[in-house]
């Protein structure tokens, strides 16, 4: 009996370790609120009724959504809250003729070989929040939704009929090329 118990004990240890290991892996993947150079609040800007595409100018025109340049920031902040220390930082970037080194919140790593197309999704009437979460409530932009392949494919499957060629909705070549 002793040997049998010992075998079970070892098995149990292996199973528990596997669970702990995969849990840790998942946790490390999920955690994602990068630190930003400027304490920019999406919440404040969205509450002022500024459209997403005002700053992310290319979201409805091209594959990339684009980040606002320092000039665009300073168009408004020349006047608005110009004295705030954070805006002073932005001004400093402008003076140095440098772009703000924003930390990336979303995006596919190069090894995913994904060609995501913002314009197609905007044209299809997909709300930004569908993929980016409720950015309007975020003081600091955080990764609210994990863009895993299963998540993307699920949405493509549900909206198959909205594709011009429905059979291409879940074709690998639609996103990977």
């Amino acid at each position, binding site marked *: 009996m002793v*040997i049998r118990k*010992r075998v079970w004990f070892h098995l149990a240890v292996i199973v528990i370790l596997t669970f702990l290991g995969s849990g840790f892996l998942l946790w490390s993947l999920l955690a994602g609120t990068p630190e930003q150079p400027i304490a920019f609040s999406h919440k404040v800007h969205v509450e002022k009724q500024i459209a997403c595409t005002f700053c992310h100018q290319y979201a409805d025109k091209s594959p990339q959504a684009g980040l606002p340049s320092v000039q665009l920031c300073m168009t408004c902040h020349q006047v608005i809250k110009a004295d705030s220390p954070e805006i002073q930082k932005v001004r400093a970037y402008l003076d140095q003729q440098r772009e703000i080194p924003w930390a990336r919140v979303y995006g596919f790593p190069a090894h995913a070989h994904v060609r995501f197309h913002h314009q197609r999704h905007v044209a299809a009437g997909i709300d930004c929040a569908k993929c980016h979460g409720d950015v309007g409530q975020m003081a600091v932009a955080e990764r609210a939704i994990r863009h*895993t*392949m*299963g*998540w993307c*494919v699920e949405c493509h499957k549900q909206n198959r009929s909205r594709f011009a060629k429905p059979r291409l909705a879940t074709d690998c070549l639609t996103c990977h090329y």
Partner: protein
Amino acid sequence: MSDETGSLTTRMMHEDLIRPVVFTGRRFYLAVALLGLIVLWGLAAWGYQVRTGMGVAGINSPVFWGVYIATYIFFIGISNAGTLISAMLRLSHAGWRHPVTRCAEAITVFALMVGGMFPLIHLGRVWKFYWLIPYPNERGLWPNFHSPLVWDFMAINTYLLGSFVYLYLPMLPDLALIRDRVNGWRRRFYGLLALGWSGTPVEWHRLEKAISILAVVIIPVAISMHSVVAWDFSVALKPMWHSTIFAPYFVVGALFSGIAILIVAMVILRRVFHLEAYLEPIHFNNLGLLLLMFCCLWLYFTFAEYLVTWYGHLPDEMAPFRFRVEGSLAPFFWGMVLMNFVIPVPILAVRKTRTVTGCLVASLSILIGMWLERYLIVVGTLSRPRLEFAWGHYAPTWVEMSILAGTIAYFILLYVLFSKLFPIISIWEFKQGRRLRERRPTRDVPVMADEPFPGVMLDD
């Protein structure tokens, strides 16, 4: 038992066979250190290849597969033999099998472990190898069960598991025997591995039953596994690969090289552990005869394969044919014929030269010859694709050779460790065989009557 005839008492036998387990000589440490160094070197070369890219190997376009796949077939081939030979000998109740089975089965397990590494070594992105495993995932992707590589994955794992069980179960009584003879940590170690075997009649009965069922199941698995490896090639739309006889051809080649490596292993074990009383010339004689038969079978299959290609004379087929027989691979081709047939046949055919040394020479020659055959199959066809413009050449690089050396050393290292830790000759089966050979016409003969190989046995 007390009825010991001849010079070998049970106690002496136990001493002989358990000595390596307890006593560790300097040569053992030396061998392990040397082999370990080569393994580390191979490991370093592999790490370099993974970090830098497959380009550090000599493979190119059109020769996308090279030494790795050739060695893969070679190792899978020699792995095929151990369990298959042992199972066939067990099923046919060959009386001379008893000292042979375990060293054959161990070859199978280790050759499979090493052979199974090659597809991974050869993968361009080895860190994604688990995509071959069918498991539900959020991407909704599954492996492609139409692909021969997935069949390979299934076949190798089945055979590896089967061979492991087939090696381990018959080892239980011997593990218990060692447990009862040694002290200290060894007693605990072997006690754990013996799973509490005590040798009651029920245990023995169920063990023999399990072995006979496994022997029946494992033979088709062994054959299927090497057939699947052959189908890796013959399902491809390639000249001189797309051949219906490839599966049996590969199986014959596998058994051929398998018997050869078994003989080599036996000769070495005999010398190192002084097992002259157990691995007798008769065993080498019988295995030599078997090897001789496979020499002829191999030549027959090779001839059939090449004859039909030549007679058909299709331009696409003739390009690799010419490349192998008269092109730059010709030394390999004729070397293969020399090593696989011309050298071993006279040695094995003549009773006088079919000695232990003779068998060793023939076997070493065959091992080299069979590796050359695998190399020819892989490189010979790939260098000559259908569109002449894409023809190419291949030469292995130091990375491939280092990994090859490392894996061979790894195989030997595993075998050395195994033969050090466990009795390489099945003690209980040897005792059983000896009792049967005495053939006391009493009721002492157990229920399952073993008949020795008639004729061959009496040759001694």
